[in-house]
């Protein structure tokens, strides 16, 4: 029953509220999807919120999950009640300490959002492969299946660990539970006090390490005793199930909510049973009940306490009538007899049978299956298929459900249209763009319904893989009873499509039930919209008898000052036509929510939202549906016809949102994917794009350099190549000292531009008569789209200039095709221009080791990836190992390449008599220090291949596959500051120290951008970030100075917006240096909180104020008797505050805690001068002083 304790949050918040209150110290590190628990803890601590013992928990961020586990271990040993939150790779890093913590019988509860482990690919989504990798650590493992359960069992786990001394891993499904918003009854402090036995707390404290009563723990033991001592704790494990059971019973008495170690749900005479852990259990329970109402005899056993596994309770929970059992595991263990839960069930049944705990007649058939890996959907249709499998005479074993396995034929078929949705549950689907506020509005909607009506409510949000122009799909349900449906909405009563362009590209009505309401945001009026729909959409509307409404939300948002935020408008439409609440009441509640949500954002935001609500209804219209579909328009194919076969058959299906339908045979077996696929994904997300004014252009190519998406390009080409150009194709004479009689064109890719405006803002060429007009100006897309599409296609066909004779500068570098294009990075991203430039300098021989983070996501997240190839088919080869090991991973690439190059050189030399001495000498002695000499080497390798054909010596055969390694490869480790400054610093330091010819590019955004802006050791003093909610009190680590300390490392700091030529030179010099190089690149980021269109000006300010001094430290200079360090910036001449005042990350603290902000700003200003003076002294020091 809903009462005063009813709340509506996601499980992360529901769990954090318990963990925070039951902890003294909290150690954190960001990892998806657990980060919000850590963020909330940090925020609550900075707000001085108290725990159960009336104290404010301390929250500390560490450099990695390994560090967090170590800090937790220390806390526990010193008698503190500590907690942490993690998932996936983070959990793996904690495993060594988990053994220790368990081996020392230490009360501790950690909360894990169960997530896939990276194997053939990374997945941020949910399954049990991480927690299953911990089942041997000695931790108790407790599984929660819903938001309510995660909240409740968190409390039980904290209490049970104190009582039992066995540490707990409490887990719930990543995203599906951690991010599902649902109604739940919250536990008060009073309830928590009843659950936690203070004597257990004191007992834990008494076991603390203290010099006042010294003990020693963590000894080394020898063969004589280790084994026995390891067995000494057995009784504690034996006792644990009883302890948890008792606590669950107490909990039941206090709250009325009952849990068991193994919860059986179903009739006493059930015959078919599914055993399962996690959110899937909810789906099984609901489906089982539905089937039973139709006459089936099915049941579900929900496993809660997985470790220690109590055979006794397990068999007691299973009705003796059960004949067949399917055990479902949300993980995969290749090569094992079966997955872990399946194996445990088999063992348990066998043991119970052997010991007589089960009757002789009880001998069920047991099969195992895998489901839901990487958050694969697990819905009632799939559950039914599993039950149906059990119904057969010989149920299939080791099956999969939820995919089509057409290779090893493990998969069960299922009914995609099966639905168990109750009639009194209302469901809705909203399809929007990330930037239009759809998700935020739906969170509001669900809060209105969940808290202001008698309904229970649930919401789950699906995002696509792009950081700009991303599609979001919100799945909402509500009804008179708690919602237990952890799967996507299938038969929606309401479908809202908030972006008109989706209607041509996606099957937006796929999830609409018959007679559902369909709301479309469209620029076309009620009178014309029908004819503007694709024929397929018209037919669906007719077939499903949909009620169709249309609104021009962008018109309303423009008129009410909401810009592109149409959230409030679409939310108002939903309430107005869904009939959930009386219209006036709904509008009043929306306004109340606006007041609540936005009042802290200020009056202006509240008022414009009110205006949007008021302006909505007059623009909302119902469309009369004709009897036939008459449209001549068809939905657009996801990719162009010219796309390669794989892109057509696999990528295109994924782009259309139908990736779930692809069978196993469609996929590479080892995670290897083709490059050059982003070119086929034409997203067209910009409302305005730049257009070129040749008469003003000075051909500096700055616009091309700074474009984050390689959507504006330059080419110089012979006049003779201009054949059959489009009528409006623009060009002008190419200005160059080295290259004559060429034309020059700057061309935008209209479908790939994100409209960030960096190109326009950086353009220095202004019309003297009207300085507003530059050589590049933003123009509305629609009128120029077709023209620029044609122009861009033509532009791509023009020949590329060989720039090897040109002096290396911004202009010449930008004449090369970028081999990194159209990524999914944020609009205006500060990182990607550096990567793009790198591919223009060395792309055809570039090997990239990419640390997990933003750059690995926009660099390697499917469906399409941005790395591409040149006209010769060469281009960057890219891989991501882990977050923490990227420098080492790159080091390994270097070792492998060097070995091959050395072997090849040795073989060439050995074959000199047959190849020719001069020929061999030319190859092995080529310094390969310029584009020209590299090109020369390529020609020589081609010639070598020809000569090898005629040589019979077996060494020639050995050389053939290695010959290309004679062309120097450029190995770069790329990653963000979270990697370089924190989790990967040890490895990075090792690689720098190694002296190997390896290059490191740090894209420094000064926070963990990819996981949402958590503080790193690069975060500057005075900035507010997640995990530094009270403002970062210490300065940024000077990574460059540390690296310079080695003396043999090339080090540069760059800021493209401040001095682009220096950036080009630094990357080129780093690449050319035969030793380790470190380039730290200032990367503006949405996490800094300002309009990124101004990002380059802010970079300039960063250098002028001394916030980001740019320099190059070149050991080669030192070797020539010069100071190694060369400052590329002037002495700071602008106060730091001018930089800080532009960014919300600093201004938030200036407002929330002005006194602290002032102290930190003054200290930061002081440090700037100290640092500059230090650099200045290094830049003028004699070389012997450099090292």
């Amino acid at each position: 029953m809903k009462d005063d304790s009813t709340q509506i949050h996601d499980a992360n918040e529901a769990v954090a509220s318990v963990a925070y209150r039951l902890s003294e110290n909290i150690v954190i590190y960001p990892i998806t999807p657990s980060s919000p628990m850590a963020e909330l803890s940090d925020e609550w601590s900075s707000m001085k919120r108290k725990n159960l013992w009336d104290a404010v928990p301390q929250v500390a961020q560490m450099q990695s999950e390994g560090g967090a586990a170590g800090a937790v271990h220390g806390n526990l040993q010193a008698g503190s009640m500590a907690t942490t939150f993690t998932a996936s790779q983070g959990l793996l890093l904690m495993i060594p300490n988990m053994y220790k913590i368990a081996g020392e019988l230490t009360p501790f509860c950690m909360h894990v959002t169960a997530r896939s482990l990276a194997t053939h690919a990374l997945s941020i989504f949910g399954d049990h492969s991480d927690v299953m990798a911990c089942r041997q650590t000695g931790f108790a493992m407790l599984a929660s299946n819903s938001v309510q359960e995660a909240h409740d069992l968190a409390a039980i786990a904290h209490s049970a660990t104190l009582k039992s001394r066995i540490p707990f891993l409490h887990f719930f499904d990543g995203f599906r539970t951690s991010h599902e918003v649902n109604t739940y009854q919250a536990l008060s402090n009073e309830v928590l006090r009843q659950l936690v036995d203070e004597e257990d707390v004191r007992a834990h404290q008494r076991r603390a390490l203290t010099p006042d009563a010294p003990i020693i723990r963590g000894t080394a033991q020898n063969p004589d005793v280790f084994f026995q001592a390891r067995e000494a704790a057995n009784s504690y494990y034996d006792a644990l199930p009883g302890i948890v059971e008792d606590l669950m019973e107490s909990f039941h008495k206090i709250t009325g909510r009952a849990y068991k170690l193994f919860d059986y749900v179903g009739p006493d005479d059930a015959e078919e049973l599914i055993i399962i852990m996690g959110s899937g259990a909810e789906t099984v329970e609901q489906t089982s009940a539905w089937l039973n109402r139709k006459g089936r005899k099915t049941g579900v056993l929900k496993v809660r306490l997985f470790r220690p596994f109590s055979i006794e309770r397990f068999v007691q929970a299973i009705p003796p009538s059960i004949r067949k059992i399917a055990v479902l595991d949300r993980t995969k263990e290749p090569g094992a007899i079966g997955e872990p839960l399946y194996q445990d069930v088999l063992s348990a049944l066998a043991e119970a049978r052997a010991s007589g705990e089960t009757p002789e007649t009880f001998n069920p058939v047991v099969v195992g299956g895998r489901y839901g890996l990487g958050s694969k959907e697990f819905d009632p249709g799939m559950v039914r298929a599993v039950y149906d499998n059990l119904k057969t005479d010989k149920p299939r074993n080791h099956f999969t459900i939820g995919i089509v396995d057409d290779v090893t034929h493990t998969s069960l078929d299922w009914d995609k249209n099966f639905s168990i949705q109750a009639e009194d549950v209302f469901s809705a689907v909203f399809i929007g763009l990330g930037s239009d506020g759809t998700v935020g509005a739906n969170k509001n909607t669900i809060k209105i319904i969940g808290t202001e009506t008698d309904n229970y409510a649930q919401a789950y949000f699906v995002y696509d893989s792009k950081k700009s122009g991303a599609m979001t799909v919100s799945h909402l349900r509500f009804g008179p009873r708690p919602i237990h449906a952890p799967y996507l909405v299938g038969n929606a009563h309401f479908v809202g499509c908030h972006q008109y362009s989706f209607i041509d590209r996606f099957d937006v009505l796929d999830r609409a039930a018959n007679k559902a309401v369909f709301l479309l945001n469209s620029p076309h009026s009620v009178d014309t919209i029908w004819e503007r729909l694709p024929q397929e959409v018209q037919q669906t509307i007719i077939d499903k008898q949909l009620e169709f409404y249309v609104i021009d939300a962008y018109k309303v948002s423009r008129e009410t000052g909401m810009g592109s935020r149409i959230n409030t408008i679409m939310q108002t439409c939903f309430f107005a036509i869904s009939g959930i609440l009386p219209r006036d009441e709904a509008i009043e509640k929306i306004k109340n929510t606006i007041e609540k949500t936005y009042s802290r954002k200020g009056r202006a935001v509240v008022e414009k939202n009110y205006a949007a609500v008021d302006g909505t209804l007059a623009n909302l219209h119902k469309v009369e549906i004709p009897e036939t579909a008459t449209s001549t328009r068809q939905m657009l194919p996801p990719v162009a016809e010219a796309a390669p076969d794989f892109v057509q058959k696999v990528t295109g299906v994924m782009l259309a949102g139908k990736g779930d339908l692809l069978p196993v045979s469609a996929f590479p077996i080892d995670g290897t994917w083709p490059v050059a696929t982003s070119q086929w994904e034409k997203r067209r997300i910009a409302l305005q794009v730049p257009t070129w004014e040749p008469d003003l252009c000075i051909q500096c190519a700055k616009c091309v350099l700074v474009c984050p998406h390689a959507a504006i390009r330059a080419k110089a080409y012979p006049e003779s190549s201009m054949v059959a150009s489009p009528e409006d194709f623009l060009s002008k004479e190419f200005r160059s000292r080295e290259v004559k009689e060429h034309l020059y064109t700057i061309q935008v890719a209209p479908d790939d531009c994100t409209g960030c405006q960096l190109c326009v803002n950086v353009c220095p060429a202004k019309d003297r008569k009207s300085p507003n007009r530059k050589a590049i100006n933003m123009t509305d897309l629609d009128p120029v789209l077709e023209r620029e599409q044609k122009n861009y296609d033509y532009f791509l066909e023009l020949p590329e200039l060989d720039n090897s004779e040109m002096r290396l500068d911004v202009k010449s570098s930008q004449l090369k095709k970028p081999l990194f294009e159209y990524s999914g990075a944020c609009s205006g991203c500060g990182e990607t221009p550096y990567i793009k430039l790198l591919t223009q300098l060395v792309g055809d021989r570039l090997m990239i080791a990419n640390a997990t983070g933003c750059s690995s996501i926009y660099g390697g997240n499917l469906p399409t990836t941005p790395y591409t190839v040149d006209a010769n088919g060469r281009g960057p080869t890219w891989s991501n190992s882990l977050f923490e090991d990227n420098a080492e991973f790159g080091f390994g690439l270097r070792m492998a390449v060097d070995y091959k190059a050395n072997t090849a050189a040795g073989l060439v030399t050995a074959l000199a008599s047959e190849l020719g001495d001069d020929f061999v000498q030319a190859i092995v002695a080529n310094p390969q220090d310029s584009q020209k000499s590299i090109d020369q080497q390529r020609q020589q390798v081609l010639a070598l291949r020809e000569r090898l054909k005629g040589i019979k010596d077996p060494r020639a055969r050995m050389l053939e596959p290695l010959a290309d390694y004679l062309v120097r490869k450029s190995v770069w480790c790329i990653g963000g500051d979270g990697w370089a400054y924190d989790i990967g610093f040890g490895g990075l330091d090792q690689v720098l120290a190694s002296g190997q010819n390896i290059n490191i590019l740090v894209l420094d955004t000064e926070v963990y951008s990819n996981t949402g802006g958590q503080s790193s050791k690069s975060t500057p003093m005075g900035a507010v970030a997640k995990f530094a909610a009270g403002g970062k009190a210490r300065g940024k680590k000077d990574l460059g100075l540390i690296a310079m300390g080695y003396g043999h490392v090339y080090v540069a700091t760059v800021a493209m917006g401040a001095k682009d030529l220096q950036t080009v030179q630094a990357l080129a010099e780093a690449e050319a240096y035969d030793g380790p190089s470190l380039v730290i690149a200032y990367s503006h980021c949405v996490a800094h909180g300002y309009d990124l269109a101004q990002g380059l000006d802010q970079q300039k300010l960063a250098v002028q104020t001394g916030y980001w001094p740019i320099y190059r430290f070149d050991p080669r200079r030192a070797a020539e008797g010069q100071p190694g360090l060369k400052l590329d910036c002037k002495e700071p001449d602008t106060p730091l505050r001018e930089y800080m005042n532009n960014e919300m990350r600093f201004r938030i603290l200036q407002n929330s805690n002005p006194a602290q902000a002032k102290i930190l700003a003054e200290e930061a200003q002081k440090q700037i001068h100290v640092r500059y003076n230090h650099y200045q002294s290094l830049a003028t020091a004699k070389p012997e002083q450099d090292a």
Partner: protein
Amino acid sequence: MNVDLKTQYLGLNLPHPLVVGASPLVDSLDRVREIEDAGAAALIMHSLFEEQILMDELAEDSYVHGHEETFAEATSYFPASSTFALNPETYLERIRKIKEIVSMPVIGSLNGRTPSGWTDYASDIESAGADALELNLYFQPALHADHPAKIEEDAIKIVKSVCDRVQIPVAVKLSPYFTSLPHFVKQVAGAGAKGVVLFNRFYQPDIDIEELKTVPQLKLSESSELLLRLRWLAILKDQVSIDLSCSGGVHTPVDVIKAVMSGADSVQLVSCLLKNGAGYLSALRTQLLHWLEEHEYPSLQEMKGSMSYRNTPNPDAIERANYVKILTAAQIQDRFGPVKW
């Protein structure tokens, strides 16, 4: 001789006319203490700009919240609790703190934009403890061709709504650009204001001829700017029964004396203090006192308005005719040498 420097401004009994005008000096409590130690008669806060608050609100909405809920791993980029201070709280807190540490009157200053912004923030400033309120009436008609009468009408409405809302006395800081300043000031008085401040100094951007862009310029005032103030003080003194404050161009004791003689009840100092430090106020006061002593004025009151339009022996010197006379070629030649073209 014991000269009485006392004056009344906005109903406040001030020991002398030298008050510290709206400036960033109030940002530091240490500076505020120095100002009081230097003997300032009152302190005027810098303006609370509603427009700035609104812009910050919208910026935060756009740059902090605009990126939320777009990507599964990063549904936000800032701590949920961290909102930019989107209300006047910081400003109000500053008034409270200043009131705690000083005994001189503290006058709030407000530049509103929306009707409710003017009245609500005025009320907030009063609640925070301000002894009076200066309304910084600043309009930017450049972008909209509004009828001037409409602009004046709207301004008077604002003054009236604020005066109706608060109990503390209200002054209105004006620009000199009114077709009929006396007429407008009369309406201001009729709306309930107790004083006017002459004049606001506007932000006037400069032009960078190389980069072809406008650049912000911040220049301190100079004594030459005082002449405009003196002229209108002198005219208004006789026509309107309202307190007058001179703001802009007061740098020397003579400037102070001229302002008071023209009719100022208080004289606001900013640029000269920024240049010379808070102690300069004390020096000005002493020199003012000495001048009055030397010239045997028993009180400041005796001098106040003595050079107003009506009192001055040659009132036409204040009017337009004077302009013609000064600009004769002969006069220019006398002052600047022969005209060369």
